[in-house]
């Protein structure tokens, strides 16, 4: 069905379609619309999930862990400080190999209080063992949420998935949305290690170095397998519903001399900048990095690269720029832009390309070429 929706409403619509057994959530700006919409679905009888209005995000993830292990599909949504408050349980969910799906509406961290878009919140959870996907449109927020459950619940993966969408810049922006009848796209929830009182097992007891180390390797092995599973799920989604995105969304990259790498809504903005630059005769392309964990293989050989980071690792550099550098060996022009919701237009992005200085870093509007 074709409709219009915000990014938040699109996520909620996808959750309604997958019918989780349990949803546990705590409100935080700009995620609130997701949990409000789901509460409406449950109250109106449009969704038969058990909704737990927990008293904190730490408890939201703990409740999802208990429910997921108990044998049902689970979902939660958070943002920024909420994500950081649940950090301990974010690690726990992955270590316990539970296919929980969480929407994270990317937002800056205090102080001072700032509710606008930034990716530092998600990147602070980078090493938890969660798969992370970043979306750029309302449609993609819907599609990625549907696919997240199928990817997470695949027995070769059995890891949680975080669907990231930019605060306000996508969460509260209305775009067209094509919803689907998912049919049997998502099989019934089946967790091989679900709690079974007829086969009592102990979960997460004290574990010595040799076994613990093996379990860690098992997470990485699944993370590596997840690349293939993501591709398979995207392929099936495309066959059934006619849409797919891939680990990156490449725009006019085939013959490009310079490629802009960005994430989320800035990655979509970069496509407009590319059209402008092409009009000036600059052979530019853009590569919107969608999957951040597992990190995809990137084909950037022989190109100049401009990376836009809506994040920063203090004392080191932009997280995406560093990832590109270490994965491809290319020294990008690193632009730090959009922190705390700073406005970055396609004209600004075109300027980043025009004025690029490979190997250098710029804080857009604050400090040039440092």
């Amino acid at each position, binding site marked *: 069905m074709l409709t219009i929706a915000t990014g938040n409403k699109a996520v909620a619509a996808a959750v309604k379609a997958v019918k989780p*057994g349990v949803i*546990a959530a705590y409100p935080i700006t700009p995620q609130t619309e997701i949990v409000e919409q789901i509460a409406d679905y449950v109250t109106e009888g449009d969704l038969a*999930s058990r909704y*737990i209005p927990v008293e904190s995000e730490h408890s939201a993830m703990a409740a999802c862990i*208990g*429910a997921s292990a108990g044998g*049902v599909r689970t979902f939660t949504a958070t943002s920024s400080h909420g994500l950081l408050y649940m950090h301990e349980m974010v690690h726990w969910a992955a270590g316990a190999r539970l296919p929980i799906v969480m929407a994270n509406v990317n937002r800056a961290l205090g102080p001072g209080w700032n509710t606008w878009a930034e990716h530092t919140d998600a990147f602070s959870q980078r090493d938890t063992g969660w798969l992370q996907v970043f979306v750029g449109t309302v449609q993609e927020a819907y599609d990625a949420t549907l696919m997240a459950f199928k990817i997470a619940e695949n027995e070769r993966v059995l890891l949680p998935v975080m669907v990231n969408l930019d605060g306000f810049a996508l969460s509260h922006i209305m775009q067209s949305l094509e919803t689907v009848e998912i049919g049997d796209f998502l099989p019934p929830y089946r967790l091989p290690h679900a709690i079974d009182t007829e086969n009592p097992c102990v979960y997460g007891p004290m574990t010595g170095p040799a076994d613990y180390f093996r379990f860690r390797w098992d997470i990485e092995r699944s993370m590596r397998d997840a690349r293939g599973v993501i591709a398979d799920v995207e392929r099936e989604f495309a066959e059934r519903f006619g849409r797919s995105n891939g680990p990156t969304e490449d725009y006019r990259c085939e013959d490009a001399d310079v490629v802009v790498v960005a994430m989320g809504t800035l990655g979509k903005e970069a496509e407009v900048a590319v059209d402008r630059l092409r009009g000036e005769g600059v052979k530019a392309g853009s590569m919107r990095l969608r999957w951040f964990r597992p990190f995809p293989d990137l084909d950037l050989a022989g190109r100049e690269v401009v990376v836009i980071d809506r994040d920063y690792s203090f004392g080191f550099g932009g997280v995406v720029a560093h990832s590109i550098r270490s994965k491809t060996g290319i020294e990008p022009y690193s632009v730090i832009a959009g922190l705390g919701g700073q406005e970055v237009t396609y004209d600004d992005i075109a300027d980043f390309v025009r004025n690029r200085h490979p190997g250098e870093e710029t804080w857009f509007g604050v400090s040039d070429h440092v």
Partner: protein
Amino acid sequence: MPGNRIAKLSLQSMTNINERSVNNLSAIPKEEYLYKCTSACAGCSSSLCLRYVLKAAGPDSVLVVPACCTSVIQGMYPGTAMNVPVYNIAFAAAAACASGMSEAFASLGRETNVIVYAGDGGTVDIGIQALSGAFERGTNFLYICYDNEAYGNTGMQRSGSTPLGARTTTTPGGKPTAKKDLDRIVEAHNPPYMATACSAYPLDLYKKVKKALSIEGAKFIHILAPCPPGWRYPTEKTVEMGKLAVKTAQWILYEREFGKLAISGPSKAAMKKPAPLEDYIKGQGRFKNLSPEIFDAMRQQVEHNIQRLSREEAGVC
């Protein structure tokens, strides 16, 4: 019909027999869900309690365990001393994890008991937010706090549940403040059932767990669990120490069902004529060199608790 009446009578007398029969330990099921050879310290009373909790709960039960002595007692992967599923979870998260599990079972139509078995630190300190949330939401579960009045697992640091004057590794001069009154905090959530228990009275504990699990909603049992290495008394005195806590009315056994308080048998006599508090204090190294002022304050607290609970049971405000 006479036949029906006879059937009814015999059913009733069977019920009476059953009720009578749990008044002695031999009526407690022989099945074990906590095996021998746990990693518990010698004289550990909390593992003794767990044994009876699980006998009362039976095999269709899941134990949710935050970081506490029971994390250690259950044994090390891949071995286990447990014969029910145990879900280990982070320190602050037990009540919330149990909330999710309880809702998952409800959505699957399963009637499996969800029981949190948590220490005092994981309950009165770091876990109290999750505990409060779960009780406010009316989660269908049983939360059991076994209270050895300090962080035992990490080597006896003080918790909010450590009593006034007790020496721990972080209160080497004795704790300057009183024990947090967990039961009044839980009571403020108006749970359908809450009770206190003590490891030295396993039959009382068994019956309270049975009753708690027969009621829908958020139930709570607070067990005093003496700890030989933490309280510094000889291991063979662990039952005696629990009995002294009750006989001196330092610890009062009761249950509160839908708000109605009933003092449990062993505490009725103790509240009328408590044994001297010295009997409880003198055998414990943690209360060594207690000042007369602190001792007086402890005695006043005992007296205050007796008065408060007596008035409540009598319906006097």
